[in-house]
């Protein structure tokens, strides 16, 4: 490979790596019509006015457990009340559901990013590693307080305990 080609390759690698530093997180940014579970929890905790939370799941799933103050989408009209409507399902709500709501209502319609699963993982049952740094522990306290507010159980792992990351297969 010529020196010029190597220089171009090195510069391209450096640029792509540098952009990663600028991007920061490896997670995709939230779409314009999405809200993070932790942000929604904050809104609910501060009892934000005219906030309407709609559950797009089945009646059985709703009865088994739902977000605080949520109503079933099938039993509600988005225009009932609220300036902001947040709709959720077990995972991400289909964009078509949110679009249908927007057609019925002038409210700002948002989808809960990650759905009920994100609510459980990030709000109700946050996990702190046993070997976490002081800074990580400090940040976790705020999450733990939010978790307890909604009746969740923040958990601090023992050193070496698996952090609940998916380990469905073995590999090297």
């Amino acid at each position, binding site marked *: 490979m010529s020196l010029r080609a190597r220089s171009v390759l090195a510069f391209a690698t450096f640029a792509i790596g540098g952009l*990663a530093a600028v991007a*920061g997180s490896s997670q*995709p940014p939230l779409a314009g019509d999405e809200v993070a579970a932790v942000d929604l929890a904050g809104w609910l905790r501060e009892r934000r006015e005219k906030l309407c939370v709609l559950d797009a799941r089945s009646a059985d799933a709703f009865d088994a457990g739902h977000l605080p103050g949520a109503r079933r989408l099938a039993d509600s009209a988005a225009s009932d009340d609220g300036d902001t409507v947040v709709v959720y399902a077990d995972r991400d709500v289909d964009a078509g559901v949110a679009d249908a709501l927007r057609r019925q209502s002038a409210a700002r319609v948002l989808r809960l990013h990650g759905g009920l699963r994100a609510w459980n993982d990030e709000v109700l049952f946050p996990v702190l590693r046993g070997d976490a740094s002081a800074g990580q522990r400090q940040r976790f306290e705020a999450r733990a307080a939010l978790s307890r507010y909604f009746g969740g159980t923040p958990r601090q792992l023992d050193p070496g305990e698996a952090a609940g990351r998916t*380990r469905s297969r073995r590999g090297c």
Partner: protein
Amino acid sequence: MSAPLLPEGAPLAATLAAALVLGVGFGFALERAGLGSARKVVAQFYWRDLAVLKVLFSALVTAMLGVFWLSRFGLLDLAAVHVPETFVGPQLAGGVLFGAGLIVAGLCPGTACVSAATGRIDGVFVLLGIFSGMFLTGLILRKFERFYTSTAHGAWILPELFDVPYGAVVAAVVVLALAAFAVAERIERGAR
């Protein structure tokens, strides 16, 4: 770490077929890089030819950037990527043993397979040694169970260890790799 190429619950035949294709591709790349030759691999330890460092660091950086940006664009679910657990003491000891074996044999498990597949006798003997070692280790592992499971940290990743964003670690590894390539080139020029 290993990323899920196929969805969870894919048929065994599909999984095996994917493993075969990836394995052939990996072996082809190793052979094309010349790493099926024990002389080439060992030359690294005498600072004469640092192809191993350059090839493997290139692969690592390519995979790392690919995983990061695929996840960032929502094309790969990082939560589904398997992260092996960290056991600091046992893995340090295993690394030292592995390194010693690499220098003595001139081949690691991957390059030994390539070497054997291309008809090199030393590769066949290294593979025999690897399987014999695995068998013997399996027989005596219980005696070392306490050590084997010591200093456990669970699935541990660098952003958690250094408490910095994922992207910062990616950028740092890229800079480290580019610096390593530059130093390696200079060393190789000096050895000629």
